[in-house]
Structure formats: structure tokens, C-alpha cells
């Protein structure tokens, strides 16, 4: 255990999935902010800093349990998971690979740089993840989870979810 590297920990974290969007790992999502490994008297300690996507995101507790399970599975006995609020999470931290996986899963990925403010009654130009049409309409800016909005495609007529830019 004395040769544990932060790189190894990151490899393990790649197996921890977002419980609400199970095709994404927490690394794809960009919520792991820091990993530190330290040795004291032959004991290996790992500290992992994670940041919530939304303040009330109920997945955060489940994600913390997922991290604990993964680290325990690799024999890590001394683990600290610390929340970090600032800088606040943005969809810009989602990896390109993560955006591709989202689209394949049927969720339109965030498509513009975060926080380019929209005016009232304006909505994003969002591509339908099924038929790639841009002829889509916002149904509601709030969806089944905090991070998603509801859209429908006017061409293939399918409803779909859009991971909001944030």
C-alpha cells in the first residue's frame, strides 16, 4: 500500500457512477475537485474533495457512499470525504467524453458555455439527442432532477431531457 498514487485513486473513482445518470462517472461529471494521499506510520490515508452540482442534490449522499464502497473495496481504511462549495460547480467541468456518453444515453448535453444569460421567455438552442434536429422546444426549465430541463423535438416528436448549462 505504500506506493499508492493519486493517479491510482482517480482510476478507482472512474468506477463510481452518478446514481441519477448512471452512464456518467463522477469524474465525467467533474465533481471531484481534489485527491490527496498521505502516509503516516505505515497508514495510508486518502482525502477526496467533492462539490455538489446543486445545493439540494440528493445524489451527493449516495455518491459519498459510492466513494466509500469503492475505496473500501481497494483496501483503503482511512478515507476523508470533504465537501467543497467554492468555486461552484459548472457544466464546463463536465468532460467531453461525459457529454458524448450523455447524448448516447438520450440526454441532450449542456451545449453552451455556462451562464451566458438568457432573457425572459428565451430558451436554448438544444439539439435533439435522437434525431439531431434543432427544431426543439422547451417544455419546462425544471425536470425530474435539479440538473435537467424538459424539451420536446418538433421533428421526431420525442420528449427528451437536457442537462442544463449551469
Amino acid at each position, binding site marked *: 500500500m505504500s506506493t499508492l498514487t493519486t493517479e491510482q485513486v482517480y482510476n478507482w473513482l472512474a468506477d463510481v457512477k452518478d446514481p441519477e445518470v448512471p452512464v456518467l462517472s463522477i469524474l465525467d461529471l467533474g465533481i471531484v475537485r481534489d485527491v490527496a494521499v498521505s502516509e503516516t506510520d505505515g497508514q495510508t490515508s486518502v482525502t477526496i474533495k467533492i462539490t*455538489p452540482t*446543486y*445545493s*439540494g*442534490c*440528493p445524489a451527493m449522499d449516495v455518491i459519498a457512499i459510492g466513494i466509500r464502497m469503492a475505496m473500501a473495496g481497494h483496501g483503503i481504511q482511512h478515507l476523508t470525504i470533504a465537501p467543497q*462549495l*467554492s*468555486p*461552484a*460547480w459548472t457544466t464546463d467541468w463536465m468532460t467531453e467524453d461525459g457529454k458524448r456518453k450523455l447524448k448516447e444515453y438520450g440526454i441532450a448535453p449542456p451545449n453552451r458555455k455556462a*451562464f451566458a*444569460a*438568457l432573457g*425572459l*421567455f428565451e430558451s436554448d438552442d438544444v439539439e435533439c439527442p435522437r434525431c439531431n434536429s434543432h427544431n426543439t422546444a422547451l*417544455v*419546462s*426549465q*425544471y*425536470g*425530474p432532477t*435539479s440538473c435537467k430541463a*424538459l424539451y420536446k423535438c418538433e421533428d421526431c416528436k420525442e420528449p427528451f431531457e437536457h442537462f442544463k448549462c*449551469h
Partner: protein
Amino acid sequence: MTLPYVLRLADDAIIIGHRLSEWCGHGPILEQDIALSNAALDHLGRARSLYQYAAELFNNMPEAEKKEVFTSVSLQNLVNAGSSLDEDNLAYLRDGWDFKNVLLVEQPNIDWAYTVARGLFFDAFNYFYFSALTKSTDTTLAAIAEKSLKEVTYHLRWSSEWVIRLGDGTDESHAKMQKAIDEMWMYTGELFTPVAYETAMQQQGQAPDLKLIQQQWMERITTVCNEATITLPAGTWMQQGGKEGRHSEHLGYILTELQFMQRVYPGMAW
């Protein structure tokens, strides 16, 4: 002065979150029902961060001072037994007079127009307030503000659109929207009237200047109401007291429901 200030922000968040959650299962259409549940969750998340911070501040106080902070019997019992407090104790074991939320957030939903009128007033306040609070010299508060601001931006957009949609809608929706704005108006003054702990925090650079927030808020409310063809109320008499623990009777009913499980089954866990 930081503890009462943090509790005030936390109490605003949990009480508006509770009010919005009352719409769950009762919204006019599914998408709007979901929208309010989402917003309620954002507020609850902010309340948790703030209560966790408040508990930390309390637990670090000198023992003698701790006994002076709360008058609620259930909390006093814990403190006298030498227990430290956590976020749940603060949310579930304080009585109404220890709550410091503004009166606006405890006002009942009544109907859709009242809900969006209260929403517009409070969301616009939150938007400008948290924008300023990101510059607080208190780094924990600044971080919570930074996180919340993104969510509040969505809330404000949602409530502004609804006030415009109803105000500039049919004769009936216009009349209902105007009435709701008129009746909620007297609860807006308290947002901008500082109490002692707010003034102390502001002087130390930890809290925003309410005069500036009021100007920004008034400008935004005027813009939205103009577009909604709503006449801004002329009334200048404003109800006060929430930030110092003097509440309308509505808060008692909210707490009865919100705190029921922990009061009847103390310390119960999922």
C-alpha cells in the same frame, strides 16, 4: 453576531422551501408541480449548508454563552446536557420565537398568483443579495452565496415569467395577479430594514448593504411589473418583526408539520 445572522438566512431558506413543497402533488400541471419541487429542494439544500455552519459556530462558543442563545426548551435541554448541536437540532427543535425568517416567506400559498407574487419578491431579493454576499469577508457565507446564486437565477426567471404571463394575460388572471401583488406588498419592507445583527455584520464587511439591494430590487420589480401591466402598490406601511422572532400565526402551523416527527419521536432517524 454571525450566529443569528446565519440562522436568519437558514430560516428564510427552510421556510420558503417548506411552503413551495406544499405544492407537491397539487400543481396546476405536472411540469409546474415539478418546477416548484425543484426550487423547494434548492432552498432546502441552502438551508442545510447554512444550518451546518450555524451549528459549527454554536459549538465553538464558550460554554457559558451557549445557554443564552436559545429559549426553546428542547434545545436548552440538549445544551444543558452538554451536547453539541447539529443541523437537524436547529431545524427541528427551535420554537417559533427562535426562528428569524422574514414574514414574507411564511405567507401561505393561497393560489398560483400569490405563490408567484411572493416568489418574485423573494427571488429578486435573493438574486441581488447573494450576488453581493459572494463578496463577504466571511468565506463560508461567500461560498454558500456563490453556489446558491446559480439556482436563484433560475427561480427569479421562473417567477418573473409567471407574473408577466398572468398579469399580461386575461382579465381574470390580471385581476388575480394584481390582487396578489397588492396583498404581498406589505411584507417586502422587512427585507430591507436591517436589525441589529445585520447592521453589525454589514459594518464588518460580512453582509451586504441593504440600501443598495433595495435599489436594485426596486428596479427589477418595476421592470417586471411594467411588462406584466401590473400597477406597483403605493402603500408604504410595512409589516416587521420576523427577523427578531415575532411572526405571523402562519409560522406556528408550518412548524407543527415540519417538526412533527422529531418532536413526537425525538432523535428518530431514517
